[in-house]
């Protein structure tokens, strides 16, 4: 076998074993699949969220254990409180989440999957979660991570072995009069 053939076969094997960058801050190349990298027990390091309606905004910052909330309305107010979020993602397509929003706990489990790359998003750029069982709390309360819904999608900004950054945005409520409320979030997790 010529040196060229060996090099060619080696290059093909490397290409088959590696996954290329999908998210904005992903590593350029990774030897681990996106499923392998996403799987594991993730703990919130920091994050932010913003709820906006007409003339009203709640801006949240998280530090892994607590949160600071800036409310902008007629009278600006600042709140602080507990905020904790844990996420366990399993290779078999199931997940478990545990969110504590100022004492309001949502413990839920369900299934997850990647998108396939229709439209603007690259394949496996998004992760779609579906809650199918609630152990504690409720899906439509004050908890933010599930976007007040049983189905919620996050864009993966950065997916590394021990670090995960995901974002979401969009409306979560609208009424027949055309009023709506939007929520944007960014969570930084570590293992």
């Amino acid at each position, binding site marked *: 076998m010529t040196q060229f053939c060996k090099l060619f076969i080696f290059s093909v094997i490397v290409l088959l074993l590696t996954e290329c960058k999908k998210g904005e801050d992903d590593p350029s190349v990774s030897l681990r699949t996106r499923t392998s990298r996403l799987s594991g027990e993730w703990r919130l390091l920091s994050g932010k969220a913003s709820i906006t309606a007409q003339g009203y905004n709640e801006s949240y910052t998280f530090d892994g254990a607590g949160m600071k909330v800036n409310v902008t309305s007629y009278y600006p107010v600042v709140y602080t409180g507990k905020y904790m979020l844990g996420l366990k993602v399993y290779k*078999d397509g199931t997940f478990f989440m545990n969110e504590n929003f100022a004492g309001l706990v949502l*413990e839920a489990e369900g299934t997850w999957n990647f998108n396939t790359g*229709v439209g603007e998003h690259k*394949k496996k750029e998004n992760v779609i979660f579906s809650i199918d069982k609630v152990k504690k709390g409720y899906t439509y309360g004050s908890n933010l991570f599930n976007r007040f819904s049983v*189905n919620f999608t996050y864009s993966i900004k950065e997916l590394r072995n021990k670090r995960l950054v995901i974002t979401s945005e*969009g409306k979560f409520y609208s009424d027949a009069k*055309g009023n709506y409320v939007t929520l944007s979030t960014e969570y930084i997790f570590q293992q």
Partner: protein
Amino acid sequence: MVTCKKGEDDPAVSLLSRKSRLTGEWHLEKGSVTIGIKDSTGAYGGYIFNFDGTSYTQVYTGNSSRVDGKAELSISFTKKGDFTLTQKLDNLKLESSGTWDFQGRVGKNKNKENITLHLSTISGTSDDFSFFNKGNFDFMYSLKELRNKKMVVFCNEEMVMLDSGAGIYVTAEYTFVQ
């Protein structure tokens, strides 16, 4: 060049990709929706809707009371990943648009077996669980049958709102034609 069967009633082999088959304007031919309400004891009550493309019947399982009305549903998918959705139920009307994608192959799911939809714009009401979007901005369906001119989507006891004691579940099947 061919795509193999994913859904239960898919053609065994198709020369068109799943994306190509899904793309186009679909009109409801028939459908059924059960909105189940479980209380904290597990007791189950609910509403059963049956659609025939232009009208519906709704039966409340508690006392078998029946309501009849007009209903229409159409959805249009583009290859670029956008969709528009129009649903009318009596005097309620939902006009919306958003983005769609297939789900991948993680866990038990086959690749492109399920479709996820995200609403970006909404005009009218969307807070009725009997509507195609199940009262949510993000929702999904499994593709039971996907052919050139026929599509059957379903969800089975999908929770749309739940707390640890009670919940609302939707079981639905819609048959669309082009």
